[in-house]
C-alpha cells in the first residue's frame, strides 16, 4: 500500500475543563485521505470536528500526534492548505474581487496586478459571480454570494488540500443546493483533495468519496469510514434513485441517531483509533439480498485497514 497523501496519526486533543482537570476531545485519532479524494466528516456538535479541521489548517496545535501531508509534517498554517470558514471570513473593507485578489497575490507574489486580477475574475466566474457583483463589498452580498467568494478565494490558490468548515451551514436549503452543485462542478475539473465538515447527510453523500463518522465526545473517535459507492458525476435528482443511496443514507442516519452515542465516552487506551471501513454496494451481484437494515452485520462488508 502506498503512503497516503494525508495521514493523521495518533492525534489527541485535550483542553483544561475549567475545574482543574483535562477534557479529552478526541484521542489517538488515526485516518488518512488519498490524493484527489473528497472526504466529508460527520458527527454531532462538540465531537471535535472543528478541532481536527483547525489542526489540519495549522491554526491549532494538537496535544499530541502528527499530521503528515505529502510526506511532510504539518506545522503552522500554509498556503498549501486552503480554508473556507463557516462564516465566510471575507475582509469586509474589500470588494469581492479584492478579497480573491488578496489570496491570489499572497500565493503568487511575483504576479503583476493584472495577472492577479484576471486569475481572480476567472475563479469568481466559475462560482457564478461576474459583472457588477464582484465589485461589491461583502456586506452588500447575500450569504450565498459571500460563500461563493470564499470558495473562489480558496480554489484560486490551488491548495494541495482544501479544508471546508461547514461551508453551507449558514445558508438556506435552496442556496445550499446551488452552491453544492457549483462546488461539484469546480471540483470535477481539478483533482483537488478536499476535507469537509458537514452536518448534512445528503450533502455528504452528494459530494464525498468517503464519509468519516465520528462518535460523540468526550473521547470522540473516528469510528467508521463509509465509502460512497455511487458513480460520478452525481446529480442530486439522479442519485436518489441509485440502489445504494438509501442503504448508505440509512446507515448514516442510524450511526448519528444511536450508534454515535453507544460508541462514545471511553478512553480506549494507547492504541490507534482507526476507522472501520464500511462498503455498502447493492449493485454488486454477490451481495446477498436480505432485510433493509443497513446496520445488520451480515449485510456489510467490514474491512479493517
Amino acid at each position, binding site marked *: 500500500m502506498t503512503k497516503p497523501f494525508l495521514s493523521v496519526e495518533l492525534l489527541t486533543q485535550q483542553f483544561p475543563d475549567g475545574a482543574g482537570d483535562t477534557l479529552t476531545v478526541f484521542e489517538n485519532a488515526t485516518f488518512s485521505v488519498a490524493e484527489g479524494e473528497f472526504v466529508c466528516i460527520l458527527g454531532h456538535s462538540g465531537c471535535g470536528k472543528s478541532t481536527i479541521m483547525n489542526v489540519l*489548517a*495549522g*491554526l491549532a496545535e494538537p496535544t499530541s500526534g502528527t499530521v503528515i501531508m505529502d510526506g511532510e509534517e504539518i506545522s*503552522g*498554517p*500554509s*498556503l498549501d*492548505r*486552503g*480554508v473556507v*470558514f463557516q*462564516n465566510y*471570513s471575507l*475582509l*469586509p*473593507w474589500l470588494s469581492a474581487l479584492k478579497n480573491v485578489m*488578496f*489570496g491570489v497575490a*499572497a*500565493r503568487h507574489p511575483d504576479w503583476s496586478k493584472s495577472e492577479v486580477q484576471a486569475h481572480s475574475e476567472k475563479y469568481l466566474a466559475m462560482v457564478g459571480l461576474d459583472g457588477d457583483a464582484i465589485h461589491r*463589498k461583502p*456586506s452588500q452580498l447575500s450569504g450565498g454570494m459571500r460563500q461563493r467568494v470564499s470558495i473562489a478565494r480558496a480554489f484560486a490558490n490551488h491548495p494541495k488540500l482544501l479544508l471546508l468548515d461547514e461551508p453551507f451551514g449558514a445558508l438556506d436549503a435552496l442556496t445550499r443546493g446551488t452552491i453544492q452543485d457549483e462546488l461539484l462542478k469546480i471540483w470535477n475539473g481539478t483533482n483537488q483533495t478536499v476535507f469537509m465538515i458537514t452536518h448534512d447527510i445528503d450533502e455528504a453523500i452528494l459530494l464525498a468519496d468517503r464519509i468519516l463518522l465520528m462518535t460523540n465526545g468526550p473521547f470522540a473517535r473516528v469510528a467508521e469510514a463509509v465509502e460512497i459507492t455511487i458513480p460520478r458525476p452525481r446529480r442530486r435528482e439522479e442519485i436518489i434513485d441509485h440502489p445504494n443511496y438509501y442503504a448508505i443514507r440509512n446507515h448514516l442516519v442510524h450511526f448519528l441517531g444511536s450508534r454515535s452515542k453507544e460508541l462514545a465516552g471511553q478512553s480506549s487506551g494507547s492504541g490507534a483509533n482507526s476507522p472501520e471501513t464500511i462498503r455498502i454496494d447493492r449493485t454488486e451481484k454477490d451481495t446477498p439480498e436480505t432485510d433493509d437494515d443497513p446496520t445488520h452485520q451480515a449485510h456489510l462488508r467490514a474491512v479493517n485497514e
Partner: protein
Amino acid sequence: MVQKIDMRSTLLSLTILFVGVFIWHAATHVPDTGPTGVELSQGEMDTLLGKNMLSEDIEYYATQGVEFAQLEQIASLNLSRSMIEAAGGIQALGISAPDENSAPAPGSLFPSPTQIGKELWATIADPFYVAGTNDMGFGIQMGYSLLRVLIGYSLSAAVAIPLGFLIGMSPMFYKALDPFIQVLKPISPLAWMPIALFTIGDSELSSIFVIFICSLWPMLTNTAFGVANVRSDWVNVARTHELSTTKTALTVILPAAAPTIITGMRISIGIAWLVIVAAEMLVGGTGIGYVVWNEWNGLRLDRMIVAILLIGVVGMLLDAAFARLQRAVAYAE
C-alpha cells in the same frame, strides 16, 4: 420623511438662535445714551433769575443735563448764551457738564449682539493685520494655535499609533505598559505644564509638549483596543495565506482597526484644541487662547467674545474633518 425631519430641525435651530440672540439683545440693550434733562425747583429757578440769567438759557442748559451748581457758575460768568457758544461751549470755560460720553449707561456693560456682529465682521474682513505684539489679527493668532496643535498632535500620533499596535498585538507589552498608562492618563494636561516649563524651559515648546501628552492617551488606548479586538477570523485568513507579521499588520489589522483608531484620533484632536486655549492663557505671548486672556485684561469683551466664538468654529471644523475621515475608513460587517 428624512427631508421633513431635516427641515423641521433646521427650523428649530433657527428659532433657538433667534430667541437666544433676542434675549441677549434685550439684556444688553442700551436705549439712549444722551444726557437726561435736569428738573429745577422754583427756588433754584428764582435764584438763577435773580443772577440775571435768561429764563430761556436756564431751560436750555437744564435740558442738556447741567446741574444747578453748574448753572450758578454759568450765571456768575454773566455772559449770554451766544457768547458762551462762541467761546467753545461751557466745557471750554471749565464748567463740567455731561456730554454723550459721560452719560451713564442704563443697560449692561456686556456687549450686545450688534456690537459682536460688527467686531466679527471687522475680524473676518481683515483677519491678518499686525499692529503690534498685543494687537494682531485673529487669523494670525489662530494660525499660531493651530500650528502648535498640528506639531504636538502629529508627534503624538507618530508615537501613539505604532505603540498602540505593539500593545494591541502583544499581550506581554499590554500587561507591562498598562500600569503606566493607567496612572499617566488621568493627569490633567495642564498639570504637566510646570514640569514642561522647568525641564524644557521654552514656553512655546512647553505648550507643544502639553498638546503632545494630552493627545497621546486616547490615540494609544483606542489603537491598542482596536488592534487587540480585530476578529480572529480575519487574522486566521492572514495566517492561512502565510502573510508576514508586518504584512498582516498593514493589510489586515490596520484596515480592520482603522475605525477605532480614527475614533481615538478624533477624541484626541478635540482634547488638544481644548487644551491649547488653556495652555496659551497660561504661558501667554501668542495664540488664540492668549487673545482671550489679553482682551479680558483690556476689558474688550466684544473682541474676547469674537475670539471665543472663533475657537468654537475652528474646533467644530477640526472635528468635522475627522468625522469625514471616519466615514472613509468605516466598513459594514
